[in-house]
Structure formats: C-alpha cells, structure tokens
C-alpha cells in the first residue's frame, strides 16, 4: 500500500534527475518566480488569517460565555462543508466590478471606487481561503482549550496573572502543538488547492501543473513543477507531524464542568457580532446565493446530463469509499498484528498521501500507468499481434488508485481508533468463552469496527465528491463529475449555472460536519 504513495513521489522527484532542460529553463525564466511569490503570499496570508480566526473563536466558544455561544460552537464549523472553490466563485460574482455589491456602491456614492479591493486579487482569494479553512484551526485549538481544563488557568490566576495574561502565558503556549497542527492542515489544503486558485486566475503550482500538462502538453514540465510543490508540501507535513507528536491530552474527567468567563455587555455582543459576521460570510451568504441561483436555473439545467454528472460523482465516490475503507481495515489489522518498526514505517508512509496535492498525485500516477500500458501494448502487439489500446491509462481504475492514495489517511484514522477498542483481552475474553477464528471476527470484531468503517467510508465519499484536480486530470473521456462541471462552468464565468452542482456538493459536505458535531457533543 505504501507503494501507491511512494511511487508517485519517486516518479515526480525523479523528473529532476532526468530533466528536459529546455523546458525547465523556460519554466525558470518565465513562471517559476511568479509561482513562488504567489504561493508565498498565499501561505503566509492563510496561516495568519486562520490562526487569528481559528484561535480567537476557539477561545471564545471554549472558555467564554456570550450571546449565542452554544449555536456558534457548532455553526462555526459549517464553512468546512463548502468546497473553497464554490465559496470562491460566489464571492467573485458578488464583489467583482460588475457584481451587485460594487454596482450598488457606485449608484450610492458615485463611480469612484478606487479604494475597493479588487475581488480577483490577492485580497479576495485570501479572504475566501481563510473563511474556508479557519475551521481546521478552530477545531483543534478548541479541543486543546477544552482538554487543558480550567485548573491551569486558575493556577495562573493564583500566581498573579489576570485573564488576558492567563490566555497569552498559559492557555496559548499549552495549546501550541494543536494550533500548529491546525494551521499546517490548513496550509496543506492551501497548497493542494486547485479549484479556488483556478477560479481566481491566481497562478500557483497546481494550476501551472494543469496548464503545462493540458495546455503545453508537456508531462515532464508538469512533473517538474510537481516536484517543487512536493518539497514545499513535505516541509508542512514534517512541521505538522512534529507538532502532533508533542500533543499530550490531559485527562479532564476529574475536573468538574468549568465555569465560563462571562463576557458582559458590549464585549459579549462584540463576540457575537464577529462570530455572526464570519458565519454569514463563510456559510450563509454563499449558500444563500447558491440556492437563489439554483432556483433560477433548475428548470433549464436539471436534465439527463446533470443526472449523469451526479451519477458519476456518486459512483466514483462510492467505489473509492469502499476500496479505501477495505484497505484501511487491512492496514489497521497489519498494524495490530505486527509491532515491528518496518510495519510502522510502512503504515506511516501509506497514510501521508493527504499531504500530496491532488495535482501532484495525478501526474505521479499517470506516468507509471502510461509505462505499464506501453509495455503491455508492446508485449501484446509483438507476441500476439493484438492491439489492446490503453488498458489502465484513462480508466476509472487509475482514478481510484489516485483517490485511495490521497484519502487513505482520512479513512485510516477512524478505523484505526476503532481497532484500538479491540484490546488483546477482548480477544482473549472471546476465546475463553469458546469463540475463535471467523466466528470471533463476525461476532466481536466487525460489530466493534462497524462505526469506524462507516465513518471512514463517509469521509472518503465526501472528499472524493469534492475532489477536483485528480478527477480533472485523470478522468476517462466523458467521465465528468459535479466538481469537473463546476470547473468548466466557472472557467467560462457561468456562475449561476455552476450553482446547481455546487448545491449537491454542499449537501454532501454537510454530512461529515454533522458527524463531527454529534461526536463532539457525545464527548
């Protein structure tokens, strides 16, 4: 399984060793500097923005009390349900020069809107990305604030810190590994993002890979660009893994329900207003606009073709979800049986695929598959006189391999944590009660693992639904999905018509959020 991750990485990196010098030269001279600058500002802006929004709201909802806190606690996760490229095209349509907001402003205060930030510029894309990704930081930071309990804050107070000092000198440093983890996850998504930057026409590595491959028809240029992106992505991954290893959960069962810091008067309403503003901008506004548009185009667009896109999306997501859950199960069993370092390392490698941007994976998986095809065609043509054409290349199988490589980690963690509930003594208890082998699997293991498997399949299903670059670059001819449809419509500026497929994706995206909220309420 690790091979599915290692091979693409190896292939892409090896493009350095075998450079098509002239193309590389061309890339360096023309686009590389621009890509690096664009990526730098994007990463910096997203990191700062998600940090401030995520940590701020995590603190407010975990420790403070203000009007609407209970609702905001879960509602602030909702932006996670909307693929960022959907938020992106809604924003552009609303705030662009010809959009309703600028038009209204011009009618109101005159045509001179030089101060209004360009919707398609850096400011616009950062706004969208931050609104879409801050929930990662929010979720992890909130978890940290909740588990560190109030006792440490009280200890700080007894040593003479006021509340503000307590936050900066006790709570924040303790939560740092979680916050770093959240920011790094947001950055991985940023680096992997293709749809949003494509909508904004903001060139980054992922769009450059796509253009090199499908515009210049140079797979080697695409893989060279991909290798630069891999290096950046792995740096983020390493930071993330290191901060994760420093997370120590505190046992909060003994400490009583903590008393919240009440934000009274204007401070409470300020917190409420800020949370409401983010929620409206990140969820209510985009979803509302999508619904309005959908209502307008549903009669015209809801036809056989739309059902075809939906069918493809469901079929691919379903197949990928089943395969990934099955492989996650095998991997979890392997981890349970074998405790040697080799197995551990293999599992680690097999589950870092989520750090690989889809555009990179698409290139890295396409190349070896093309080799295999050529080899098979050669053998078949030479020895048997057959003309089998392409076997795997441009088939659904190739897409599924790429999906599994990218989303195995998503499926692995719920299955693995369910597996941890089957302790050695649970097995032994079943044995001492006269059960073994397959019957033990059926009566003890599967029922315990069922919830984890279901969660894994659901999460992968939704992720594949939203996935854009892998689908776009490796799909067989005619296999358009909802995400691909959105890409095509938005690249032609047909925002209204992109709303219908987007609504389906948002609905799917709500499922994991509901799972998440329910889980956190149980805990």
């Amino acid at each position, binding site marked *: 399984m690790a091979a599915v991750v290692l091979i693409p990485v190896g292939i892409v990196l090896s493009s350095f060793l075998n450079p098509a010098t002239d193309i590389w030269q061309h890339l360096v001279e023309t686009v590389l500097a621009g890509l690096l600058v664009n990526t730098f500002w994007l990463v910096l802006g997203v990191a700062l923005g998600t940090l401030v929004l995520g940590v701020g709201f995590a603190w407010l909802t975990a420790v403070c009390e203000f009007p609407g806190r209970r609702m905001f606690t879960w509602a602030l996760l909702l932006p996670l349900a909307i693929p960022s490229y959907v938020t992106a095209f809604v924003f552009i349509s609303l705030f662009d020069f010809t959009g309703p907001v600028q038009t209204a402003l011009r009618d109101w205060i005159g045509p001179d809107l030089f101060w209004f930030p360009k919707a398609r510029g850096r400011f616009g894309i950062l706004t969208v990305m931050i609104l879409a990704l801050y929930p990662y930081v929010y979720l992890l930071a909130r978890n940290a604030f909740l588990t560190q309990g109030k006792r440490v804050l009280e200890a700080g107070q007894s040593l003479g810190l006021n509340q503000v000092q307590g936050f900066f000198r006790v709570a924040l440093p303790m939560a740092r590994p979680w916050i770093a983890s959240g920011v790094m996850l947001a950055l991985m998504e940023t680096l992997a993002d293709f749809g949003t930057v494509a909508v904004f026409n903001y060139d980054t590595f992922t769009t450059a890979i796509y253009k090199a491959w499908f515009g210049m028809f140079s797979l080697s240029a695409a893989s060279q660009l991909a290798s630069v992106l891999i290096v950046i992505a792995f740096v983020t991954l390493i930071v993330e893994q290191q901060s994760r290893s420093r997370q120590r959960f505190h046992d909060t069962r003994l400490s009583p329900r903590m008393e919240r810091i009440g934000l009274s008067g204007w401070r409470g309403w300020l917190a409420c207003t800020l949370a409401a503003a983010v929620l409206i901008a990140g969820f209510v506004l985009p979803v509302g606009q999508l619904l309005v548009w959908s209502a307008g185009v549903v009669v015209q667009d809801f036809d056989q073709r739309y059902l075809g896109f939906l069918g493809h999306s469901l079929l691919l997501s379903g197949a990928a979800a089943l395969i990934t859950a099955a492989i996650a199960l095998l991997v979890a069993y392997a981890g349970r049986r074998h405790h040697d370092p080799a197995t551990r390392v293999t599992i680690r490698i097999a589950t870092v695929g989520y750090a690989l941007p889809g555009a990179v994976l698409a290139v890295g998986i396409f190349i070896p598959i093309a080799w295999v095809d050529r080899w098979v065609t050669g053998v078949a043509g030479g020895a048997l006189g057959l003309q089998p054409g392409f076997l795997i290349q441009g088939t659904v199988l190739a897409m599924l391999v790429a999906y599994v490589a990218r989303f195995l980690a998503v499926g692995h963690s719920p299955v693995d944590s369910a597996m941890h*509930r089957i*302790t050695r*003594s*649970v097995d*032994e*208890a*079943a*044995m*001492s*009660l*006269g*059960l*073994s082998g397959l019957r033990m699997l059926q*009566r*003890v293991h599967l*029922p*315990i693992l*069922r919830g984890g498997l279901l969660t894994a399949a659901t999460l992968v299903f939704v992720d594949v639904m939203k996935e854009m670059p892998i689908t776009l670059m490796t799909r067989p001819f005619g296999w358009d999905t909802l995400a691909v449809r959105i890409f095509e419509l938005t690249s032609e500026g047909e925002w209204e018509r992109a709303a219908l497929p987007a609504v389906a994706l948002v609905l799917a995206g709500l499922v994991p959020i509901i799972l998440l909220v329910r889980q956190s309420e149980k805990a």
Partner: protein
Amino acid sequence: MDAPSQLLELRRISHAYGERQVVKDLSFSLGKGAIGCLLGQSGCGKTTVLRCIAGFEHIGDGEIRLNGHLVSGNGSHVPPEQRRVGMVFQDYALFPHLTVASNVAFGLHGMDKAARAGRVAELLGVVGLEGAADSYPHQLSGGQQQRVALARALAPRPDLLLLDEPFSNLDVDLRERLSLEVRDILKSQNATAILVTHDQHEAFALADEVGIMQDGEIQQWDTPYNLYHKPVNRFVADFVGQGVFVEGRVLNPRQVEIELGILTGDIPHECTAGCQICGRGCRVEVLLRPDDIVHDDTSAMKAEVLNKAFRGADILYTLRLPSGARAFSLVPSHHNHALGERIGIRLEADHVVAFRKAAPGR
C-alpha cells in the same frame, strides 16, 4: 500425585518471553471448589502463570492438567476456547457493542433461547445487576462492570475460573467489599478459581490457599494463617504482614532467647540444624509480629514510643527497645501514650519464627 480430587495441576512449568525467563519450574495444585491465589509484586510472573493456565501462552517445560487431562505440555496445547476455563480480565474486556445481558450470554452456546435467558437472569441476580440487563458497559460504574465480567465468565459454568487483578481498577472501599462479595458468589456457584493479585488483604479475604511468588517461583503455597504465622523463609515473612526481625540466641531446639525474654516453640529445622552444628549460642533472627508484644503497665520492661499510628480500635506503636532495636506493638486504643514516653511491654507469643542470620551485607 494424580489424585482425581485435584482439579488443576501444574507440574514444573516454565515460561520465557524471548530470553527472559518469567516462570521457573513452578508447581502447585488446586482441589475442586477451592479458591487459590497467586500473590506477589508486579513483574513476579503471576499473571503469566494465569495466562498459561488459560492457554493464551504456550509453556516451555512441564505440564498443566485440568481434571486429570493434559492441556499443556509435552508438545500438546489445547486452544483456550476448548479448555472450559473462564477468565475475568484486569480491564474487564467487556464487549462494548453488546448489552450487559448479551455480554453475559456470549459464552452460552448450544442452548435454546429460554434456557439462555434463564441462565443470564440467574447470574445477573447473583451479581445483583438485574436492573442493568439492557445497559451498555460504558454506562456502568467500574464496580458494576467488574460484576458483569464475573457473571459473563461464570455463565458457561467453566471448570476453572481465573481472575487477573480483578479489583485493581476499583477504589479501596469498593475493593474490600467486593472481594468478600466475590468470594460468596464463587462459593455459591461452587466454582474453582484462581486469583492473581499484589494486595495481600484481597488475597487473604478471598482465597483458601495462597502462593507467594517471587521471580517466577512460588516461595510458599499455604493457607493464609500459615503464611502469616509459619513463613518458610525471610522473603515470605517480610512480604506478609508487618513485623521486625530481632537478634536471638538458640538455647536448645525448642527455646530462643531474645532481649525481651525467652520464646518457646518449634524452631524451624534449618535453625535447629545450625544450632546442632555450632552448639549452644547459635545466632538467629527472630520475627516479631505487632501482636507478639503486648502493652502491660505493670511490666518492668520498658520501651520508648518512637511513633504511633491511630487505627481506630487500636494503635500501632513503633517502639525502641533497650538495645536500640525497633519493634511494633498493637495496643488497644484507649492506652494512649505520648511520643517519647517509656511504656511497659511484655512478650506474648506461642510460637517461634526464626531464621539463620542473614549473611553480612544483606
């Protein structure tokens, strides 16, 4: 040796995890209906012995017989699911996806529905959890989970029940109450059981016979009374109960003189032997339990109170004897003396526990 009355028999078994020998040449047997206990500090190999009996571990040498049948040894190994040996695990290992009733019913194979339900109801009654049949394990307290684990293990009427540190996850109050309760339950079901624990109160409350284990070996297998009053070596004497060793001189095979007076009783053979070799005046170490020294205001012998621990009905005094040696004395609590006070004491022991003096440096 093959007495049919012995339900379980371990003959010179050994077990190693890789290079590390954790059970060495260990033997004991247990009669039907008896409750045995392996008592020792953590890491002494007691849980491994239990797992060998259950069949979770293969033994290196020796043999294990259940009802006279060989289950482990001589290259044969009956798998755990065929041994009819029940087990209660330290973490209870309840099946999280099943209700309490389904957990208890789990091991009941080949019974019709009514008989199964009857047996489950009977056992839930025995452990006092009739009302919790439809609850899930995570909804129960630790003590309740413990009882479910016990009911589940007892349900298929195993020939032998194994309990691995069954009370270690409970708080002290509950631990004492439940260990007496579990003894009653086991006796009412006429179960044969082996308990593993590091807590001697638990061992003595529950078991008929106790084996003191150290470094993979049983030091002494005996009744709780004998372990306390007739330990066979210094390790057992130190491990079980409280007490101090004071120096003594063997006068003859039935008498030892210590600074508090002369003790009369059967002197364990190794000391007698030593005495006959070196003659009158052989040095030994004599064990003094807190109940061997009584407080007597009229006694001429005085000792200084160094420390005292109030225990309700009595006070445990730590005393300095005239020679400077220390000793414990258990005194009814209305005899309340201050630290530093010199109080009268008297020796009152009807037997002697003495060992040859340990080699210097020990």
